[in-house]
């Protein structure tokens, strides 16, 4: 069907930070060895964390399940190396805090677990079987949010899915991992996309790429010829790759407030996820490695690496020649939404799309002690959700909870455009995040109190009957 235009429709806003992708855009994905020990945390996705299925002293192989959970919104975790479990203990996690992790001594042989075999051709499988396979492979969204993929692929019957969007926008500056996959493995990516389409029963498939990546668009266009899948080129603008923005721009549908893409008949998956799914079906490989862009002005040789999960950040940086000067800030992910790290002794997890090191000059800017606003309206103009970030920031700062709710703080996708653009360096998204968290806490608290009250009321009623 060829190219779909990415004309902006109804949705507006967004910002245009310098892309900085040229550092790694031309760097072919390079596979690196895992270090002598890998640290694989039991929490790698949104949802229920896994419980360890191995203990100290156990032998594991590449692909051995080392953590799993009974919960639906969860995905198992596999070993990325063969060797011996030396410890199961809390370890620093790149998403913050300490998380139970299996530390595995790498024997360097990468023996594969014999139970791993490619499943039957997916064309012969029922959607239900495909979903099972995807879950058992431990697939989660590799764009950074890390939502278990099989959950996305299991929309309830009331919400028929007509379209699958493959998200290749990669709108965060610096990151090039999806771009490289589109260029180097277009066939596998496409295969993954078709598996997803079968799993959800979608007729229409769109590969969406920002128009600053013409080579990737070209590669995909050649690939999709005759398959009925469309390639859409999107206007380059952050946060073009945010699910809700993507759906609005491509399909002119808006995901309702509080809803999910499936409520408008859409499933969005990341390029890396599609690639990983394809490899599961062709080689039987579960999710044990991923592409990570290691980049920044202080990295000696910025690169795109295929990294075994559990590899320490410092090891990945060493594989890129180390730093030219001590970085001021190290970020997991991109500069707009990534998480600042306080140590490099954290492992690459399923959601690690990039490791970005910034110099002192790049990392420094002062924030006002008190949020200051000159009412320039820039934050309002750039908010893709149509919110009024300056009010949200002020009300969160002043703890005006009911006003925050009235202004729909929960619709904020935390893209950070408002903070990026503010001339007074008002930390808007930070204030909004704090406000959201506090509101959620209050809601939970209220619910708990209500259920306690109800229980107490029931009890006294029961007591009354007895007496």
């Amino acid at each position, binding site marked *: 069907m060829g190219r779909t235009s990415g004309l902006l429709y109804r949705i507006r806003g967004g910002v245009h930070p310098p892309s900085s992708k040229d550092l790694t855009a031309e760097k072919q994905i390079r596979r690196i060895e895992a270090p002598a020990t890998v640290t694989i945390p039991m929490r790698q996705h949104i949802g229920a964390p896994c419980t360890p299925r191995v203990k100290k002293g156990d032998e594991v192989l590449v692909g051995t399940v080392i953590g799993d959970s009974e919960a639906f919104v969860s995905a198992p975790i596999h070993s990325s190396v063969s060797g011996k479990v030396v410890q199961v203990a809390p370890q620093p996690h790149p998403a913050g805090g300490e998380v139970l992790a299996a530390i595995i001594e790498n024997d360097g042989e990468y023996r594969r677990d014999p139970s791993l075999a490619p499943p039957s051709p997916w064309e012969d499988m029922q959607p239900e079987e495909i979903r099972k396979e995807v879950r058992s492979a431990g697939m989660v969204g590799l764009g950074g949010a890390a939502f278990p993929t099989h959950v996305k692929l299991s929309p309830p019957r009331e919400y028929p899915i007509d379209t699958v969007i493959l998200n290749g926008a990669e709108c965060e500056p610096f990151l090039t991992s999806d771009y490289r996959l589109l260029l180097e493995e277009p066939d596998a990516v496409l295969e993954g996309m078709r598996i997803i389409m079968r799993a959800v029963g979608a007729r229409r498939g769109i590969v969406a790429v920002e128009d600053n990546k013409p080579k990737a668009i070209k590669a995909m266009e050649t690939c999709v010829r005759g398959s009925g899948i469309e390639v859409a080129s999107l206007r380059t603008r952050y946060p073009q790759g945010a699910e809700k923005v993507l759906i609005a721009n491509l399909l002119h549908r808006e995901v309702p407030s509080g809803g999910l893409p499936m409520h408008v008949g859409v499933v969005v998956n990341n390029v890396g996820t599609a690639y990983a799914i394809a490899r599961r079906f062709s080689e039987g490989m579960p999710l044990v490695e991923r592409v990570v862009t290691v980049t920044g002005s202080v990295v000696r040789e910025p690169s795109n690496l295929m990294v075994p999960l559990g590899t320490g950040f410092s090891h990945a940086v060493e594989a890129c020649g180390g730093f030219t000067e001590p970085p001021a800030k190290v970020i997991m992910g991109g500069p707009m939404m990534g998480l600042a790290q306080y140590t490099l002794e954290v492992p690459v997890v399923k959601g690690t799309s990039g490791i970005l090191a910034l110099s002192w000059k790049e990392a420094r800017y002062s924030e006002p002690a008190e949020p200051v606003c000159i009412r320039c309206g820039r934050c309002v103009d750039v908010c893709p959700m149509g919110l009024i970030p300056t009010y949200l920031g002020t009300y969160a700062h002043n703890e005006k909870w009911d006003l925050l709710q009235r202004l729909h703080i929960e619709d904020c996708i935390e893209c950070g455009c408002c903070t990026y653009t503010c001339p007074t360096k008002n930390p808007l998204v930070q204030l909004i*995040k704090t406000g959201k968290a506090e509101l959620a806490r209050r809601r939970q608290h209220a619910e708990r109190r209500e259920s306690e009250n109800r229980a107490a009321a029931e009890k006294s009623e029961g007591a009354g009957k007895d007496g």
Partner: protein
Amino acid sequence: MDEGKLIISTSPHVRDPINTRRIMCHVIAALAPVTVYALVIHGLSALWVLLASIAGAMLGDFSMQKGRRLPVTLDDCSALLTGLLLALTMPPKLPWWVAGVAGLAATVLGKQMFGGLGHNIFNPALVGRAVAFVSWPGYFAAGYAKSAAIGIANTAAHKTIQAAVDVASGASPLAAMKIVYDPSTSPIGPGGVPRGIVASTYYKPLLLANPWGCIGEVSALLLILGGIYLVATRVIGWRITVFYVGTVAALTAITGRDPLFYILAGGLLIGAVFMATDYTTSPLARRGKIVYGIGLGVVTWLLRFWSNNPEGVMFAILFMNALVPLIDRYIMPRRYGRVKEAEEAVRT
């Protein structure tokens, strides 16, 4: 590795290099040509007005911040800009001390009393001007220059205009036009010169070298270029200005006057480009800005046609400033995901 030295902060980790000072400096740069040109046309007296007004504005900011033990923020250039804008809205021959008091009033009453930058309701420069205008109306009327003094064209049409300007006791061409248009007081007399021709004789001087108005009204062309510069550098949006000027033009045309004249004469352009677009005193959202611009146009038109005061722009902006909180409250951006059926679908 240099651990413990890594900066921890929340995203985003990059920022747009824009800041308050840069914004102010862009506006000052946009005003620079018209300011320099005005000094050339009006000479020394305008320079004293300019200096006194800027000094007053900066002194007002400085003393209030010192007095309240707040950090002094003269380096953000906002007081400088307020003083400059104020000077441009005053007659060139105003006594310098009136300009100085106006400057002081602008930042003290117009800005710091409300809590400083970003908190004021009314445009500080216009507050300063209003204070001086109400306190010393005589100096204002007498402060306007005559074309003869500057030696602009000596044509017959020009003399007619000058006669009208004189009858309006030295006021701006806008005041003169009221007389020209009003058959009962017009020196030209009823059925004299056709209206279109009378108005159009003003076009060229208003665009290129207008000696009759305030300091900043010296050239409509330079003001327009300044506005284009600000829109191109994304310092201001186009909506307020375009809807303001457009509304005035439309209403003027409908009521049978010459719209072009009413755009070029008086404070409309400087007001629409530099005053109405002031961040703090205009609505936040784009849709609000459209409503605000239209409102400004209507009020300006009403004041110009139904009051004796040709200073419609200043009062229109101050009046609409007062309505901004209301506009902000009721006119919000269209929120993403407000799709009725779909929202219901989620709920069920």
